[in-house]
């Protein structure tokens, strides 16, 4: 799945570029809904309601939520095997930092970004450069963050 996902992202990237150049008057949201179509996402969020909304949002963006986790142990387990293009990680899972998950995903070369209710996230320096989306967030912010994280233009 991963080997398939990367070329797809590259194609989408190219097409998104072309779309931008040929159809500049079109609103970006529509463009990238297409651009993100089929992107496989691993969603980690401890609040059930928020996770539901994130899933809805991702599906609306054309993404496919291939795995989800609410607790850290579950998330760590998933992150070892999950096949996805991108991961969305809530920094705080029932009071525990998501760092081990981030380490595993980074080790596997899977791009990800964080969501957090923290003003300044207590992340270790190795993940300091990652994008952090502050809660509560809007659907278009998720979209931009996804684009930016997987390298699709328009983030």
């Amino acid at each position: 799945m991963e080997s398939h996902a990367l070329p797809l992202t590259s194609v989408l990237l190219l097409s998104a570029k072309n779309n931008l150049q040929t159809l500049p008057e079109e609103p970006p949201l529509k463009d990238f809904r297409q651009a993100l179509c089929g992107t496989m996402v691993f969603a980690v969020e401890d609040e059930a309601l928020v996770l539901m909304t994130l899933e809805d949002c991702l599906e609306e963006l054309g993404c496919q939520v291939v795995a989800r986790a609410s607790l850290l142990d579950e998330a760590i387990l998933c992150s070892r095997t999950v096949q996805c293009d991108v991961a969305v990680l809530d920094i705080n899972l029932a009071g525990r930092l998501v760092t081990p998950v981030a380490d595993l995903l980074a080790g596997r070369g899977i791009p990800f970004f964080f969501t957090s209710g923290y003003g300044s996230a207590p992340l270790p320096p190795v993940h300091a450069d990652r994008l952090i989306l502050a809660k509560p967030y809007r659907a278009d912010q998720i979209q931009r963050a996804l684009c930016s994280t997987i390298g699709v233009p328009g983030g």
Partner: protein
Amino acid sequence: MTHALASSRRARPAALHLVYFAVIVAGPLLLVIGALLWRSVSLERQQLDSRLGQVLEALVADLDRDFDRQFTILHTLESSPLLAAGNWPAFYEQARNALRHKGYVVLVDLDGRQIVNTYVPYGTAPETTGDPETIRRIREARRRVISNLFLSKVARQPVYNVSIPVPSSDDPRFIMSIGLLPKAVLAILKEQRLADGWSTVVWDGNGKLLAQLGMDDHAVGTPAPQALRALEPGKVTRVSMVSPGDVFAITARSDLSDWRVAVLFSAAAIESQVWTSIAVWGATILIAAAIVALLAWLFGRRLTGPLAAATDGARALGRGEELTLEPSGIVEIDAVNEALIRAKREVEASSAALRQSEEQLRSAAEAAEFGPHRYDVVNNRTYRSPQFLHILGAGEGEATASFAGGLDWVHPEDREVTATAKKAILAGHEDRYQLDYRILRRDGTVRWVMDRGRIARDAVTGRALEVVGVVLDITDMKDAEQRQRLLFEELNHRVKNTLAIVQSLAKQTLRSKPNPRDFTEAFDSRLLSLARAHDLLTHGSWSGAPLGDIARTAMEPFIGESRRIVIEGPAVAIPPSSTVALSLMFHELATNAAKYGALSAAGGTLTIEWQVAEGPAKSDVVLRWTEIDGPPVTAPLTTGFGSRLLEASARQVGGKVELTFAPTGLKCTIRFSVKRTMSAGPQLA
């Protein structure tokens, strides 16, 4: 003080001043004594001179008196008829009787031919006289003569003549003499009965010695000492002689002869007197001086003793030692001592006040745990109080240090910044400073300190001279600050999370209830449920809540007269992260029951019961939601939001949910685990 006392005059001890005083008083007295001594010595000389003169005068008078006696004898013989008659043998007899061995009579004519000489038997007289000089002088002057020494032709030794012309009134035809031995003169000298040291000398007109006290017979006729012969008559002169040595001498000429008489007094005798006087008086002066000095010393001791005691007292006062001063018997020194004792009391009082103030500062420093320190910029020396050292965890040996040494204590991570800041403060113009930095104590612990104080600057150049400050251990404050910051972050996090939940709630509700009225009703209900769950959490200080409380709180809006709700189960604590999820689950199930299930009709019963299986690390909870006696189940909960929420929430609490739509009513089983070691308070990470 030393400065004020220093003057151009050199200070000397009081004893020396007293000696000066004694010398000033005794000096003139000693001078007077010296002058009196001098005067007595010169008086003695005058007395000697006068005595010499008297002795001389008496001697000359005695000599002349003796001459007169000889002349009287001669004049008596002159008037003898035998002489006039020229009866020489008879005259010889008469003259011889008249003299009776005290000399002899010689009668010569004007040519010197001897007529009578009583020294030898009549008729055996030598032809001519041995004293032609007298013949010549009488023939010239025609008056009586006393001759110088000449060698007698009959006596065959030096003799002298006392001679008169005969007749003495008229043209003389004869010369009559009495020949006398110098012994006669010596006898006269002896008659003076002079004391030791005195001497008399008589010599004739030729300078030949006639007599001298203590002289040898052989010396008669020898030249008299030249020193005496050269003397000016009538004047006392000091003369050096072979014998008897140095003398004071005075000479005079005999009135009746050419003879000269000298009176001598041994210079040694008089000088020994003078020296004796000087010795006696000198000794007296020395003894007097010694007595004066001794008295001055004794008296001075009465002054200097108390003065020294007062001085020692003042020194002791300066050193802060015990002061013992006794009454000195001297008003001024007693006044000084009194002033010292007063000063001591004041010093003690102010020392006590200072000690008290220091003690207060120390106990304040200890109580407040601040450590005073002082930095002498000029000498690059920092001085640390015991409290400062205590904060550093350092020993007494590190009570002073240099600027660089002072930075050794700063935590390596803060050292450079602190050093730069401190240098900037010294170089700047501010009078006050405050720095926060970490220190690394010797025991390895890291503490936060606040270092604040004041900089004393040169009024003209503005150069920093001294820094006085305190360090305050603010680790607890820093920790509290940190905690507070974390708490704020946590609060922010929870608010944001809650807002995200509310946002999701709104979105999810909107999806299933697009109608605004339905939406509002459902959203309000869910929001209130969320709010009650939050109340529970807040009530339990975000440490979670008992499962029973969660269930009862969630069911509260649904309790009514016709509704039977049973809530049963052992106590089990639910962590805060699961509290909201369970609350929302209960709310959804209850809403469904109120609309379609056991709570929608009278007579229905809802039972919420749970069992807890206690494990070593966690408790496994099985919660059963059972509805009975409700209307027949027609609308399964599986549609839409409800089932999704149940599933997602079950995942959130780490469990599983199982729904059964039995004919008697809905059954829902929720299985989940709760960790035994629950956190007691809000988790910060």
